């Protein structure tokens, strides 16, 4: 059996095929606002794909298309060969999305936030659930928050709880919306390591939206750059250390020029 085409379940060691994602000529309009413009992209099974781009460029909207929360105006999104806009796909492929703002269930404790998925899908007994939940909390150094309410946590902690909640779903495809924003550098590094470990040991496909250059350059297999709803380039991280395109170069390595500030350029 070719292990590189299998995902191993982090908790149960069960194996299932690694999943890929394809976008074919995807466009999305909100009324007259064109947010995504003719995007074609393939994410290979088991790879870490990092999508970078200025805020407002449509990264979150693109992520929502992959899990079927938004439907394309034209074009098609498939996950492991299944149409992402079909609700049944969520029952066929285990996908987890880490929302930008966490989207934790405010009426539930941190523990119950993590346990909900396992309980609703009757994946384990309460004892089994406890083990999985505590393990995921431990990975993100959150053991002491189990009984707390999400509203009592800091922004960074909520982010980590959201990641832990995605981990217990034992996904084949993990989608992260800016997982390291609001985190300190050490915790950001931990998140990068988690993403890399999920790939190396469990062949989990990861789609990461991030502004974090060090994350992108250290763990990504490929990096895409989205600007104004267009996918400008997709390249291995090595090529982005020294980009040729001035627009991309300016986005990745913005040069702070006090003598000739950008906001003055914008004003004129």
């Amino acid at each position, binding site marked *: 059996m070719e292990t590189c085409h299998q995902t191993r379940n982090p908790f149960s060691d069960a194996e299932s095929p690694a999943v890929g994602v394809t976008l074919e000529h995807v466009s999305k309009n909100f009324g007259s606002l064109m947010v995504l413009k003719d995007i074609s992209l393939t994410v290979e099974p088991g790879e870490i794909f990092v999508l970078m781009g200025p805020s407002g460029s449509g990264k979150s909207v693109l992520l*929502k298309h992959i*899990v*079927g*929360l938004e439907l394309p105006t034209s074009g098609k999104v498939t996950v492991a060969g299944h149409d992402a806009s079909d609700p049944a796909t*969520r*029952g066929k492929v285990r*996908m*987890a*999305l880490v*929302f930008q*703002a966490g*989207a*934790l*269930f*405010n*009426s539930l404790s941190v523990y119950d936030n993590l346990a*909900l*998925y396992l309980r*609703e*899908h009757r994946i384990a007994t309460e004892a089994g659930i406890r083990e999985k939940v505590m393990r995921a909390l431990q990975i993100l150094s959150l053991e002491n928050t189990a009984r707390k309410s999400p509203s009592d946590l800091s922004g960074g902690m909520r982010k980590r709880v959201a990641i832990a909640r995605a981990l217990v*779903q034992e996904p084949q495809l993990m989608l992260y919306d800016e997982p390291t924003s609001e985190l300190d550098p050490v915790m950001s590094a931990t998140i990068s390591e988690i993403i890399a470990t999920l790939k190396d040991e469990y062949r989990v496909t990861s789609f990461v939206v991030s502004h974090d250059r060090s994350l992108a350059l250290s763990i990504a297999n490929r990096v895409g750059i989205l600007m104004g709803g267009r996918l400008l380039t997709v390249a291995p991280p090595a090529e982005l250390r020294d980009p040729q395109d001035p627009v991309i170069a300016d986005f990745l390595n913005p040069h702070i020029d006090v003598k000739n500030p950008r906001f003055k350029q914008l004003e004129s």
Partner: protein
Amino acid sequence: MKQLIAILEGIGGTLRLLVRAVAFAPTLPRQLPRFMEQCYQIGYTTLPIVSILSFFIGGVLALQAGYSMESFGAKEFIGSLVGLSMARELGPMMVAILLAGRVGSAIAAELASMKVYQEVDALVTMNIPPERILVLPRLAAVIVMMPVLTIIANLVGWFGGAIVAHSVDFIALEPEKYFETLRRFTKFEDVANGLIKAEVFGFVVVLICCSIGLNTRGGPREIGAAVTKAVVVSLILILVLDYFLTQSLL
């Protein structure tokens, strides 16, 4: 024209929500704790105010009846008037209005906030249908709690009427006579009639408030707007439905 389309869309969306929620009915036994929690919420938040208001409505009915019937010496029929009005009309109506104000608004606020803060989206991506865990337990709970609340409202209202009729000087009707006519004229059908109404009102209020809450779009400001809309639509529907139900149950 735009508004008409919005209203039709709202009705369509609400019916779809109902069908989806009902389709998950077999999961209800597994959701017993959630169902119990909702029963508690509905009962706990409305029972005290239902009791207080029923008492006074029964009392006012007795006063008005006493005032108008005393002149032609028919005051022992106060019991029948209070009994029938509470059972057929005011009990169910008042419980439904209080339900809209206390429970419906809370449901709309909670679901709207879950929608705005993407908790609903999170459920969807976890393949946990929101209709199953957010809507179904509430609908089931209101079906169970409405008759209970309405019967309590009727009883308290009847006793309120009795106490007022007895203690107000110009009426001074003995409770035995009051309850004698109440029992003679208020039939089981009248009470059952009211319970059917209450059941319909309660179900519609909860369904509407769930639907409006879950269809909230935009930012946190929209939560308040959703609550207002849910309560207003509920109240209008209670009154309109009341007319048609009364007519068809006559």
